[in-house]
C-alpha cells in the first residue's frame, strides 16, 4: 500500500470530486470532502517523512518506466510544498461555507466541494509529478477549477474577475505549453530528470532560449509576479473569502515551486544565472513588486483587495529570494512560500469570519469590530504582525533569511528595501487595526463573535504563524535542505 502513496496523493482527490456530485447532500459531501482532504494531508506528511528518512521516491505511474511513462518523483522540495498545500486545504475545507458569500444555494454546495477537490488534485499533481507535460495537464485542471471557484462569489463582479483570470491564466498556460513543446523538440523527452541531462548540450541554441523565455513568462503569470499580477486583485476581492484563502496560500505558491523547479533542475544554475543573468531582470522587478504592492495596499478601501495587493508584495519577497541565487536567499524564498501561505490563508479566513457578521468587505464597515468580534480581530492583529515581520512570527524568519542572502551578495540596497517595505506593511496593517480598535463608536457594540467552527480553523493557521515563528526546525530547516539540494544539484 505505502509504495502507492505518490499515486494516491493525486488520485484520491481527483476521484473524490465526481463522488461529491453523486452524493449531493451538503452535510454528507462536506464530511466526505473533509475526510478526503485530511487523508491527502496524511499522505503528504508520510511522504515528507519518507523523503527525510530515506531520500527521493520515484514512482512509475501505471508501471510504465520513465522516460516513456509518467514518473512521480518526490524529493525534499516538493514533499515540502505538498505538505503546505495539503495543510492549507485541510484547514480551509473544514471552514463552514457561508451562504451569503456564495452565489449558489445550499442545495448545490456540493459543486463547491467538487471544484475544491479538483483544484486540490491539480495543485498536488503539479507538485508531485516528475513530467513536464504532466505539469501542464495538472496546471490546467487546477486553473480551470480555480476560475470556477472564483466565479462562485456572490458579487456579480466575481464573474468578470473569474473571466479575466481565465483569459490571463490561459495566456500563461499557453506560454508554458509552447515552452514545453520547444524543449521537447530539442531533446525528445519530457521527464524532468531526463531533461536535466539532455538539455546541457543544446543549451546554446536559440530554440532552448525561446523555450526558457516562454516558460519563465508563463509561470510568472500564474505566479502573479509583477507586472503580470493584475488578474490577482479582482479574483481575490470578488471571489468568496474561503476561495481567496485557499488560492492565495496554495496556487501562487505552487506556481513558485514550478518556477524554482524549472530554473534549478531543468535549466540549471549555470545557464539561468550565469548565461542568462536572470537576476538582472527578476531582482528589480521583485523590488518594484514589494514597494508597489505595499503602496497599493495602503490606499485600498476594501480589505480583501488590501490583502490581495499585500500578496503581490509578498510574492515579490519570494522571487527576490530566488533571484539572489544563494543559499540564504533561496532558503528565504522557499520558507516564505510556506510562511506567507499560513499568514495569508489565515488572514483571508479572518475576513471570512468577519463577513459572517458584517455586510461588506469595505474597511469602513469593520469599524468597532475589535470590541464586537474580539477573537476574530485578535487573529487579524497576529496575522498582520506576521506580514510586517515582527520577531516571533513567521514573517520575521523569512525576512531574516532574505536580508542575510542580500548581505551575503553585498547588496546592501536590497537588504534596506526588504526592511523599508516592512515599514509600508506596518502602515497598511495599522490602517485596518485603527479602524477596528480605535474608532469612536457612540454605542458600545454587543459582543457577537464568529462561531467556534469558523474561529477554530482560522486560529489553527494564525496560531501556526506564531508556532513556526518560534520553532523553525520544520520550515526553515527543510527549506534550507531543499535550497542546498537545488543549488548543489545545479551548480
Amino acid at each position, binding site marked *: 500500500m505505502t509504495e502507492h502513496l505518490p499515486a494516491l496523493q493525486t488520485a484520491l482527490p481527483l476521484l473524490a470530486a465526481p463522488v461529491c456530485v453523486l452524493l449531493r447532500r451538503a452535510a454528507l459531501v462536506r464530511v466526505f470532502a473533509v475526510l478526503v482532504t485530511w487523508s491527502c494531508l496524511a499522505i503528504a506528511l508520510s511522504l515528507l517523512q519518507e523523503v527525510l528518512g530515506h531520500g527521493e521516491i520515484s514512482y512509475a505511474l501505471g508501471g510504465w518506466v520513465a522516460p516513456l511513462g509518467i514518473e512521480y518523483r518526490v524529493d525534499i522540495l516538493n514533499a515540502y510544498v505538498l505538505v503546505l498545500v495539503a495543510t492549507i486545504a485541510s484547514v480551509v475545507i473544514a471552514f463552514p461555507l457561508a451562504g451569503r458569500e456564495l452565489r449558489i444555494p445550499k442545495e448545490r454546495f456540493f459543486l463547491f466541494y467538487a471544484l475544491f477537490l479538483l483544484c486540490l488534485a491539480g495543485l498536488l499533481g503539479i507538485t508531485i509529478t516528475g513530467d513536464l507535460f504532466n505539469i501542464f495537464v495538472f496546471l490546467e485542471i487546477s486553473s480551470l477549477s480555480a476560475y470556477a471557484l472564483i466565479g462562485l462569489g456572490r458579487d456579480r463582479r466575481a464573474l468578470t474577475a473569474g473571466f479575466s483570470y481565465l483569459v*490571463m491564466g490561459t495566456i500563461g498556460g499557453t*506560454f508554458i505549453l509552447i515552452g514545453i513543446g520547444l524543449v521537447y523538440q530539442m531533446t525528445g523527452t519530457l521527464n524532468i530528470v531526463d531533461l536535466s541531462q539532455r538539455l546541457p548540450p543544446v543549451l546554446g541554441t536559440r530554440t532552448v532560449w525561446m523555450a526558457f523565455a516562454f516558460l519563465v513568462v508563463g509561470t510568472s*503569470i500564474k505566479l502573479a509576479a509583477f507586472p503580470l499580477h493584475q488578474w490577482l*486583485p479582482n479574483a481575490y476581492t470578488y471571489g468568496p473569502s474561503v476561495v481567496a484563502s485557499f488560492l492565495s496560500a496554495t496556487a501562487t505558491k505552487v506556481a513558485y515551486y514550478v518556477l524554482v523547479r524549472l530554473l534549478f533542475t531543468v535549466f540549471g544554475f549555470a545557464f539561468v544565472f550565469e548565461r*542568462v543573468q536572470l537576476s538582472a*531582470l527578476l531582482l528589480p522587478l521583485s523590488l518594484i513588486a514589494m514597494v508597489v504592492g505595499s503602496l*497599493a495596499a495602503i*490606499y485600498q478601501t476594501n480589505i480583501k483587495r488590501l490583502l490581495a495587493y499585500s500578496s503581490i508584495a509578498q510574492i515579490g519577497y519570494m522571487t527576490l529570494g530566488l533571484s539572489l541565487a544563494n543559499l540564504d536567499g533561496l532558503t528565504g524564498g522557499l520558507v516564505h512560500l510556506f510562511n506567507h501561505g499560513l499568514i495569508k490563508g489565515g488572514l483571508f479566513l479572518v475576513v471570512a469570519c468577519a463577513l459572517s457578521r458584517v455586510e461588506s468587505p469595505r474597511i469602513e464597515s469593520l469599524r468597532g469590530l475589535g470590541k464586537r468580534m474580539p477573537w476574530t480581530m485578535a487573529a487579524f492583529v497576529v496575522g498582520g504582525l506576521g506580514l510586517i515581520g515582527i520577531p516571533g512570527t513567521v514573517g520575521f524568519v523569512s525576512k531574516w533569511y532574505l536580508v542575510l542572502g542580500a548581505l551575503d551578495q553585498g547588496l546592501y540596497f536590497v537588504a534596506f528595501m526588504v526592511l523599508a517595505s516592512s515599514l509600508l506593511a506596518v502602515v497598511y496593517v495599522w490602517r485596518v487595526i485603527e479602524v477596528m480598535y480605535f474608532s469612536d463608536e457612540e454605542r458600545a457594540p454587543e459582543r457577537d463573535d464568529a462561531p467556534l467552527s469558523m474561529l477554530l480553523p482560522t486560529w489553527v493557521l494564525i496560531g501556526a504563524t506564531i508556532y513556526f515563528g518560534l520553532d523553525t526546525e520544520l520550515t526553515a530547516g527543510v527549506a534550507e535542505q531543499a535550497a542546498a539540494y537545488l543549488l548543489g544539484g545545479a551548480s
Partner: protein
Amino acid sequence: MIEAIPPGMILILGALILPFLGGALQRVWLVLLPVLGFVQLTLLPEGLAQSFEFFGYGLNPVRVDSLSLVFAYVFYLAAFLSVVYALHLRDTVQWVSGLVYAGSAIGALFAGDLISLFVYWEITALASLFQIWARRTEAAYRAGLRYLVIQVSSGVLLLAGTILHFADTGSLEFGALGLVSVGTTLIFLAFGIKAAFPLLHGWLEDAYPEATVTGAVFLSAFTTKLAIYALARGFAGTEILVPIGAVMAAFATFYALIENDLRRLLAYSLISQLGFMVVGIGVGSEMALNGTAAHAFASVLYKGLLFMAMGAVLYRTGTTRSSELGGLYGSMPWTALLCLVGSASIAALPLFSGFISKSMILTAAAENHYSLTYTVLLAASAGAVLHSGIRISYDTFFGPDRGIRCDEAPRNMRFAMGGAALLCFALGVAPNLLYELLPYPVNYQPYTFSHVADQLQLIAFSVAAAVLLVRLGLYPKARSARNLDIDWLYRSLLPGLVQFAGRQLARLKSAIESRALMGLQSAVRYVQGHHAPTGVLGDPWSIGATALWAALLLVAYLLMAYL
C-alpha cells in the same frame, strides 16, 4: 516543575490570565504572581538553564548567575510592592501591563544572548507605555508617544548593534562586550538611553511625572535598573562611564533642587542615583560592582517608596506641585512617617539602606584614585540630602499649611509603603542580608566610626546649609514652571522649529510660489494617484494590458540572449 518556566514568564503568562478572572479572585491572583515568581527564583539552579536553536543560532533565554539573581530578587520585591500599591485600582489594563512589564524586565535579566535580551527589551518598552497612557490625559498621551519613540529607538540600536556584533565575532552571547567595535558601541548607546545618560535622559523626567499614580511606582523600579544591569554585564570597567556617571549625578542634582513638581523632582533624583551606579560600573573593581548592585537594590526600594508616597499625595490631593502643598502631616500621618523613612534612606542616614550601599561606590571610587569623581559624588550626596531628604518631606507634609484637608492614603497603599519602609530599615540595620546576595564576596564594613561620622557630618552640614540659605532668602524658589532640559529640544524646540519652518515655507510660497513644497506635495499626490484604487497601479488592468506586458517581458528575456 516550576523552575522549568523561564523566570519572568510567570508574571507575563499569569498577567494574560488576569482579564478572565473576576472580583476577589483577580486580586488574589495579582498578589500571588510575584510571590510565586520569588519562590521560583529561590529554586533556580545557577548556570545555563535553557537553550534552544533558533534558525541555526543557539539562544540561551535563561542563564542564571549571581549578578542576574540580585537584580531579580529586588525586581520581584518591587513587583510585589507595586502590585499591592495598585490593588485599589479598577483598571485591568494597568495591572496586566504592569505585570508584563515587570515580567519582561525580569526575563531580560536572565537573557544569556543578545537576541533574547532584545525581545525582552522591546516588551518592557511597550508594556510600560500603558503605565503612562493609562492616566488618560492629553499630556500623558503626548509624553507617552515621546517615551515610546525613544524607547523603541533604544531597541532598534540594540538590534542593529547585535547584528553588527554578530557579523564581527559570530557570537550572540551576552557577556562582557567592551567598547571595541561599531556594533558594541551601538549596544552601549542602546543601554545608555535606558540608563538615562546625560543628553539621552530627557524621556525619563518627561514621562515619569506624567504616568499614573501607580504607574510611576512601576516605572521607577524596572527600566533604568535593567539598563544598569545590562551595563554592568556588558561594559564593566569601561573608563568613559566614570565621567558620564559623575555628570549624571551632578547635573540632575541641580534640576532636582529647583524643580517644583515633586514627582519630576524624584525623576531627577533618580537620574542622580543612577549616576552613582554608572560610576560604579565604570570603576569596575569588585567592590565597585558590588556597590552598584547593592545601590541598585537599595534604590529600587527607597525610590519606589518615595514615588509611592508622592503618588498617595497625588491620589488624595490631585497635585504634586510643591507650591500648592504643605502641612499635610495632619491629614496623612502614616504617609508622612513612611515618606520620612524613604527620605532617610536616600539621604544615606546610618541605619537606613542608602547608607550601606552608596558608600561602597564612594569608597571604591576613592580607592581607585578617581578623586575628582569622588568629590562630585560627595557633592551630589549632599544635594540628595537636600532635595530628596528634606525638600520632599518638608514641602509636602511639614511646610506652611495651604489648607488642604484630605483622607489618609488607602489601606493597600499604606501597606505597600510600610513594606518598602520595613525593607529599607532592615537592610540598613542588617546589611549582610544584602551583601550575601552580591556577585562578589564582600569585605566591606559600613558601620565603622569614620563612615558613620563622615556621613553624619555631611548630612549635618547639608541641613545647616539649607537652613542658612532659606533664612537668608538665597534658596531659589520653586516656581510652578517647567525647567529647561534636554527634552525641551524635541518637546518644544523641534515642534517649534517645524512651525517656524512652516511659516517660513508659507512665506516662501507666497513669495516664489513655493516650488519645493509643491514638488513634495505633487510627489505624494503622484504616489497616491498611481496607487489608489483609481490609479494605474492600484486598479486591475484590462486583459489586453496584461497580455501586452507578457509579450514585452517575453521580448525582454529574449533580448537578454544578445546582451
